[in-house]
């Protein structure tokens, strides 16, 4: 199912985070969302991932309207939010959360969790409390927690921000491996242009609460149509 957001506006106490933003995300495609701080990327991601409702406008997954089918659609989604979002439980329990929500039986759950921990090099951290992790480890747990349910739609908000190259590679590889098996739809917010080129089929450029340009990755970097996009990806201040 393609994800379609039409005319989404969202305000927080008077701050307009999204301004009549419309965008379509094609099924099976990996999309990167780029844009300056405060341009509404995280807000767009939360609304597209059905975490928050839009202030106004419509979100739909295929023929499903999010407003009516949130509960069902959320079962197909996995999300890694930016910042510190782990539950204050062990690494194991964090990763098991989505499977418990889906009422998976204990044995199957145990197997899935340990496989997922292994693919993010976390096997030896299973019993550790989430508060005791380094930021790289914590971020890997957040990714494991989102991937373990095998979501059809994966949303990642700055999944490798402030991580070293090794941790970044572990995360990107885990995503790549899963994607080689099943072509899930991925939306990644990132400030890393190299990462964008590595992981994204398409790129969305956000500016002041709107998607101002959207195209295949090569085109965005080689011949951006919008002047703001051009300046942004070339590291020239736009605001």
């Amino acid at each position, binding site marked *: 199912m393609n994800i379609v957001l039409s005319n989404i506006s969202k305000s927080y106490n008077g701050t307009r985070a999204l301004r009549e933003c419309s965008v379509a995300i094609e099924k099976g495609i990996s999309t990167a969302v780029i844009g300056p701080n405060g341009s509404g990327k995280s807000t767009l991601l939360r609304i597209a991932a059905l*975490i928050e409702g839009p202030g106004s406008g419509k979100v739909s997954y295929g023929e499903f309207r999010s407003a009516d089918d949130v509960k069902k659609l959320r079962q197909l989604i996995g999300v890694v*939010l930016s910042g510190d979002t782990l*539950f204050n439980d062990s690494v194991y329990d964090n990763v098991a959360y989505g499977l418990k929500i889906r009422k998976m039986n204990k044995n199957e759950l145990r197997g899935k969790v340990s496989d997922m921990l292994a693919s993010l090099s976390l096997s030896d951290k299973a019993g550790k409390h989430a508060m005791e992790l380094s930021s790289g480890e914590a971020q890997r747990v957040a990714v494991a927690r989102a991937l373990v349910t095998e979501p059809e739609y994966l949303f990642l908000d700055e999944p490798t921000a402030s991580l070293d190259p090794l941790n970044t590679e572990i995360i990107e590889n885990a995503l790549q491996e899963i994607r080689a098996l099943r072509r899930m739809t991925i939306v990644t917010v990132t400030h890393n242009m190299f990462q964008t080129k590595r992981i994204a089929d398409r790129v969305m450029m956000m500016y002041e609460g709107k998607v101002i340009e959207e195209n295949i990755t090569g085109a965005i970097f080689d011949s951006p149509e919008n002047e703001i996009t051009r300046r942004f990806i070339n590291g020239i201040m736009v605001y």
Partner: protein
Amino acid sequence: MERLFYSIKEAFRLIITLDSEMLGIVSLSLGVSIAAICFASLAGIVLAYALAFRKVPLKAFVVSTMNTFMGLPPVVVGLVLYLLLSRSGPMGFMKLLYTPYAMVIAQVLLALPIITAMSHASLVAVRPAIKYAAKGLGASDAQASIAVVRYARYGIISSVMAGLGRVMAEVGAVLIVGGNIAGYTRVMTTTIALEYDKGNFELAIALGIILLLIALILNSALYMYQRKVYR
């Protein structure tokens, strides 16, 4: 001096032989306080959640009232409840005065503000990202709310322990509405407060020791629980 030693010795005898009057008083105390804490926790945690995350009329007023009432003098609660429950009062027809039920009500009123205010403080400290994360992993709105409460569980459990500590140790309210009737509404604190000079000195000391032990157990349990968290 000799009398004191004798009484302490007798007190230990009561404890070791599990004196039946003493056991009756201890179990009534525990029964009343635990019942009160169950009701107060249920109401307090739900109220705290609503105050933290829902639109509630007069929210600021309710929160500051709960904070103020954390230090409510038990005798005042006892007096007000007495006036309500006494024969001529508005709830007199329920015939609850001088029953364990009246004592439970008094202790609920004493524990509720503590549990509500402390739970509220730990719930508002949970960042929205935790609720977002739960929803992003497939939780329904209700399941996400549970994730938030779970995230705040250490503070909430501390609030319940604090409430239990307060009602176990309190004497004024249960004395006024319970009446310290032997074998019916006589609890540890009222026995200690009223019986020490009526030839029940040994019993008062024995109960004092037990009360201290219970407080010690409660507090060490709480301490170990919190240490587990902040290790």
